[in-house]
């Protein structure tokens, strides 16, 4: 049954996962995502699920690998330093064609960094989640509602394409409270004939594996996987358009920075500046056609991120020099105010394209 409740982003995500049929959660505590683990430890015993606090993020992601091999919906969650540790497992998950969900509620790095919100793991999520040629689906919620909704979408798409999926949130989304309509619990029945769940003496043995010692065979496996990636890139991009129709200054921002950008551009509109926002919801696949459509009538593009500028490289690649791409960001856990972003918009408006 659908219900409307007031929840923290992290808790909404956890409840969304349970309602999407996830009964296997493995994690290791780290701020600012620990509410997910705490919520799972409370709820899983009541829904016949498994909550397990692993000895490390490495162990947790490998428990996910085991559970995903068995064919169940499994997830882990962490924050930036823990995601570095999960890279090995993510690479094996991708190389073994295993569906699962990994949540990164980003905090500032590098190193131990800080515990304030950040978007500095964009490259880690979209460019280099682990060694080798691989991708994973990356979804970027920007409201508590989306924390609950996208996790279920992530499980569905991971199963559909047999790829790992990531929810890339940040400390602000994880910690803030908003009203959320929780989706009704759904029964999931995905057929997984490839799973290593015991052949019951009825079929040949299944092997979950990423090792292929003959280079030509490995290349072919990767090429096959890239064909699937191409379908994903074609079919699965998602973005929100906010006042983009007549926008001369097109802001591109996701997650928490998109919320700040929205406030800034609403204020800019009051000053007569035609600003709009294109908010990527999928970061991989990157919404290239959505960006180009929104940029059609724009004069300038401004990318806003909580980092030194990572997604901005994809924006530049998307528009291929057809529009000037500006960047504004704060890092280290510092949050720009809407006024800061508004000032950037004014500057671009004043200077025109240079």
């Amino acid at each position, binding site marked *: 049954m659908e219900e409307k409740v007031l929840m923290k982003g992290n808790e909404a995500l956890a409840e969304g996962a349970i309602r999407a049929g996830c009964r*296997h959660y*493995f994690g290791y505590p780290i701020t600012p995502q620990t509410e997910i683990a705490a919520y799972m430890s409370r709820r899983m015993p009541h829904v016949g699920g*498994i909550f*397990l606090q*692993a*000895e*490390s993020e*490495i*162990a*947790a992601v*490998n*428990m*996910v*690998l*085991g*559970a*995903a*091999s*068995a*064919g*169940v919906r*499994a997830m882990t969650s962490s924050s930036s330093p823990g995601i570095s540790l999960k890279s*090995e*497992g993510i690479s*094996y998950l991708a190389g*073994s064609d295993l569906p699962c969900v990994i949540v990164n509620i980003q905090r500032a790095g590098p190193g131990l960094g800080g515990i304030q919100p950040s978007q500095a793991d964009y490259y880690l999520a979209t460019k280099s989640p682990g060694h080798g040629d691989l991708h994973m689906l990356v979804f970027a919620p920007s409201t508590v509602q989306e924390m609950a909704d996208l996790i279920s979408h992530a499980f569905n798409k991971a199963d559909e394409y047999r790829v790992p999926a990531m929810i890339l949130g940040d400390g602000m989304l994880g910690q803030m409270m908003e009203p959320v309509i929780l989706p009704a619990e759904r029964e999931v029945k995905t057929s997984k004939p490839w*799973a*290593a*769940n*015991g*052949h*019951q*003496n*009825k079929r040949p*043995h*299944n*092997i*979950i*594996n*990423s*090792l292929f010692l003959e280079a030509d065979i490995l290349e072919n496996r990767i090429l096959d996987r890239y064909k699937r990636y191409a379908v994903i890139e074609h079919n699965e991009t998602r973005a929100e358009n906010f006042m983009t129709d007549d926008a001369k200054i097109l802001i591109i921002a996701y997650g928490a920075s998109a919320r700040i950008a929205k406030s800034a551009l609403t204020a800019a509109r009051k000053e007569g500046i035609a600003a709009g926002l294109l908010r990527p919801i999928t970061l991989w696949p990157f919404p290239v056609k959505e960006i180009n459509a929104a940029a059609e009538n724009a004069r300038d593009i401004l990318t806003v991120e909580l980092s030194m500028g990572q997604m901005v490289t994809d924006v530049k690649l998307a528009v291929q020099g057809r529009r000037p791409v500006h960047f504004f960001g704060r890092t280290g856990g510092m949050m720009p105010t809407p006024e800061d972003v508004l000032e950037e918009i004014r500057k671009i408006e004043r200077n025109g394209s240079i």
Partner: protein
Amino acid sequence: MKVVYEKTSALTDQTLSYCPGCTHGVIHKLIGETLVELDVLGRTVGIAPVGCSVLAYNFFNVDMVQAPHGRGPAVATGLARSLPDGVIFTYQGDGDLAAIGTAETVHAAARGENIVIIFINNAIYGMTGGQMAPTTMPGQMTQTSPYGRDTATAGYPVRVCEMLATLDGVAYAERVAANTVPNIRRAKAAIKRAFENQVARRGFSIVEVLAICPTNWGMTPIDSISWLTEHMIPYYPLGVYKDKHAENTGGGGV
């Protein structure tokens, strides 16, 4: 014609990738026979490590998962928690289990995961060409201890069964050796006991098998067997280090 010996149906027809004289083959056979005797082939999932036995997923006629180096016990945990009727085992070398995978091993044991670990202690890293392992003997020459393992700088070998036996989560820990016919029979009994524990949901069982690596030890298989007997067994005494349910079955302790 009377059949006097048959390959166990738990092993596929794939040619084993192991060197001539290597003990991995005989240990595979013992596991296979056990799975058939317990009639659990259909609900078993095995986990291949990174090491010489990485290709074990081709050899066992059960569903198999290839785990990242050392992570077998974590992968096994995920499988065991997802398959309530599953029989889950890992097969791991000493680098895999006692170096890179120490944390995963110790914590799977501490949680009392309902899994079996077959731990192959051959005192060396076989697959990568014979480097020092955590179980390499003091003074033993390897590619990365060319003057012999110097305990002053490289420390001491890890005795896995003794260490794990201190954990309450462990139901069963026994060290056996693949050096003589009687010892191989004992190894079989230990492996069977471990899998029986799992079928009865008694928690974590480990069987450490002292094994040889003629290729990287630089010896003939026969000399290797003697070396195992003379050098390894005194440092790694054979026996049952823990058997929580021994009183039910008459099993013994060291």
